[in-house]
């Protein structure tokens, strides 16, 4: 069983090595893409085969990495349990579809750049799989950083665009901020328990033998997760990450990178459970992030940014569920969201590809021009809005149920409001872009097959997962009866409001923004968080450089100047001893003789 996992893990890595070490292949572009696709396709097959194997206890295959006297300090290996099985499938599936899609999407890219792109993609898939399969915190951290690196590379894929380069750096730094917490947390955890291994840690947690006072440790680990999963206040990088190619956004938002944080919390939930305060914090921050991002999504005009904010918002959902003690619900939402968010992004990419702009105000009546894209986008939107019987409905309901069951009233209200807002802003996009009255310029047409097929696959999967969940019924949670009506009601109300505002135009959007002027003002400026960070960053950096400059100029240089002046002056003084007159040197001889005489008297 671990062998299958190993196959899934190594195939993308082999593809990466091949592309990285064989430049002729990489420079071929499409050929490189096919290699990468074949590898990830194989990985998907292995993941599916592995998925069919029922797992009782987690299967662990371990090799020694850092030996130590009392058993190996760190191991590398594979940890296969239902969570990693599902993640494997999700990651390889989305990666495969994204890579296929990219073939057409990046058609105009130069061949070497395309080869580079696929090398990154393979490495990204490998990193994420390694992260998912990690049996201990050290391996997890290594792959965690690899994921960060890959997202940096891919977001900055068009590195000659300043905005893309900035966004890549921003993503890297922001997540790194959380990662500092993560690595400190990991080391603290090791100090407290003496092990990195999940299996051992879970055993301890299961037996209630975890040492007390883990709150700080778990909080630090959560910081890492918050950075990767774009939780407030570390969410700022995700919308900017839209500067990368759209398939990359799909990959980052659906299957890799941002899911890593949620995955970490899910994976280590038993450890988090030992620190209830941290769990509550996770829930509150998650719910707050969800609401905050939803409001920002409502005022955003860039189609990809709307989706980015919706991702932040949905990640808030997942985190809130985990914080409320329902990690299964959060994880379910992670899976369903992964599928339909990939669908939405790829569809948005098709739209952008066809229209040539990101701004929904310049789109309209696209449904006629792009019927296929329109349909799949609508499917994704309905799923995201939480309409029965699509997949998003069930996972969202599970999350809400979990939060309600944890008696977190305020977060529950925030999440419910978010559900409403989600429906509003998603339908705003759909109505404006696909049914709006503005005529889009040019002659947009539906995407070519390499792009269309992944869209349809994802759309069908969204429906299928929904259907399967509907048939199985509330297996993961037992929501109170009113919750289903509430969910559906919220989604319906949101859709209705969007229709009234943007289609029937009974309610003027301008009037709404006037009515909510302060909120509107703040949301349009991203609540000033980005500006605040920018100012802080600049202020700190400038202040620090000023301080260093001052120290250098006055302290360091001062010391050196004084030293050099002293040396010069001393040299000048000493120089005068060398009068050049032999007789003065004879004085020296005489003094030397005197000194000898005196010394000979003193030391007898």
């Amino acid at each position: 069983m671990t062998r299958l996992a190993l196959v899934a893990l190594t195939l993308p890595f082999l593809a990466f090595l091949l592309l990285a070490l064989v430049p002729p292949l990489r420079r071929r572009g499409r050929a490189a893409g096919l290699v990468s696709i074949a590898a990830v396709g194989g990985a998907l097959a292995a993941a599916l085969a592995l998925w069919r194997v029922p797992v009782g206890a987690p299967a662990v295959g371990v090799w020694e990495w850092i030996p130590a006297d009392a058993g190996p300090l760190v191991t590398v290996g594979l940890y296969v349990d239902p969570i990693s099985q599902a993640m494997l499938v999700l990651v390889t599936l989305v990666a495969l579809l994204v890579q296929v899609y990219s073939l057409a999407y990046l058609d105009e890219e130069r061949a070497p750049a395309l080869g580079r792109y696929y090398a990154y993609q393979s490495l990204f898939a490998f990193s994420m799989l390694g992260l998912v399969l990690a049996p201990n915190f050290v391996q997890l951290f290594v792959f965690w950083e690899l994921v960060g690196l890959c997202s940096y590379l891919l977001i900055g894929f068009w590195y000659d665009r300043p905005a893309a380069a900035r966004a890549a750096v921003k993503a890297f730094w922001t997540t790194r901020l959380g990662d500092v917490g993560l690595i400190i947390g990991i080391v603290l955890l090791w100090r407290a328990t003496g092990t990195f291994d999940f299996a051992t840690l879970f055993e301890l947690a299961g037996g209630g033998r975890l040492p007390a006072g883990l709150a700080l440790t778990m909080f630090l680990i959560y910081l890492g997760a918050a950075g990767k999963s774009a939780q407030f206040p570390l969410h700022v990088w995700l919308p900017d990450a839209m500067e990368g190619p759209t398939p990359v956004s799909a990959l980052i938002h659906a299957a890799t990178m941002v899911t890593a944080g949620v995955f970490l919390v899910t994976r280590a939930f038993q450890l988090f459970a030992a620190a209830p305060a941290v769990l509550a914090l996770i829930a509150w921050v998650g719910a707050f992030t969800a609401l905050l991002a939803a409001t920002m999504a409502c005022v955003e005009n860039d189609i990809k940014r709307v989706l980015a904010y919706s991702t932040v918002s949905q990640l808030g959902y997942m985190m809130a569920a985990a914080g409320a003690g329902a990690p299964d619900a959060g994880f379910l939402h992670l899976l369903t969201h992964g599928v339909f968010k990939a669908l939405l992004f790829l569809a948005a990419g098709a739209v952008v590809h066809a229209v040539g702009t990101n701004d929904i105000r310049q789109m309209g009546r696209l449904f006629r021009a792009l019927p296929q894209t329109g349909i799949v986008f609508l499917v994704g939107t309905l799923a995201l809005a939480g309409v029965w019987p699509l997949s998003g409905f069930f996972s969202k309901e599970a999350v809400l149920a979990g939060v309600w069951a944890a008696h977190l009233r305020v977060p529950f209200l925030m999440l419910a409001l978010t559900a409403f807002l989600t429906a509003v802003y998603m339908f705003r996009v759909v109505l404006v872009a696909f049914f709006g009255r503005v005529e889009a310029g040019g002659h947009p047409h539906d995407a070519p097959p390499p792009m269309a097929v992944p869209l349809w696959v994802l759309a069908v999967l969204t429906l299928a997962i929904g259907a399967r969940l509907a048939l199985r019924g509330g297996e993961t949670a037992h929501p109170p009866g009113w919750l289903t009506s509430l969910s559906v009601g919220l989604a319906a109300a949101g859709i209705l409001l969007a229709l009234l505002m943007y289609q029937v135009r009974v309610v003027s959007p301008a009037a709404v923004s006037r009515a909510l002027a302060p909120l509107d003002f703040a949301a349009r400026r991203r609540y000033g968080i980005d500006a605040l960070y920018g100012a802080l960053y600049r202020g700190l950096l400038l202040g620090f450089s000023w301080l260093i400059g001052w120290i250098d100029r006055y302290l360091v240089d001062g010391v050196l100047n004084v030293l050099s002046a002293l040396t010069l002056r001393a040299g000048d003084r000493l120089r005068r001893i060398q009068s050049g007159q032999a007789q003065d040197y004879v004085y020296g001889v005489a003094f030397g003789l005197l000194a000898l005489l005196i010394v000979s008297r003193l030391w007898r």
Partner: protein
Amino acid sequence: MTLETGAFWGLAAVLLASSLAVVLTRNLFHSVLYLAVAIVATGGVFLLLDAAFLFGVQLLLYAGGVVTIVVFAIMLTERLVGEGIGQTSRYLINGAVVSVAVFVGVLLFVGQAPLPAARRPLGADVTRALGELLLTRYVLAFELLAVLLVTALLGALYLARTDE
């Protein structure tokens, strides 16, 4: 007061006086003459110390050789300059202080040094003993000295040669 004591004090007085004159006289030529006196007085001290041969050497080499050379040099330079060479001193006080300090230092050193009190017997013929030593124990140094003298002679000639 034995003959030796009297002679010592007399010679010492002459030696010190002429030495001071060498150092302090304004006329360089007079300086050289005083040096001759001092050298002869030193030779007398050698006589007191039973070194008659050394007295002879001192007279011949120093008084006869060195002083003559110096006189020649003075005359030569004076001829070149075309005027009498004055002889002045610089920082006389400083020099005196340092010299006195060195003298006092040596005195203090000598004061506590264990010196033999009386003369030890010195063989019958000192000159003969010297000759034997020079040609036996110190024959190498003796020969090297000859080389040195030749070298110095050639060197002096080379340095003092006139450009053609």
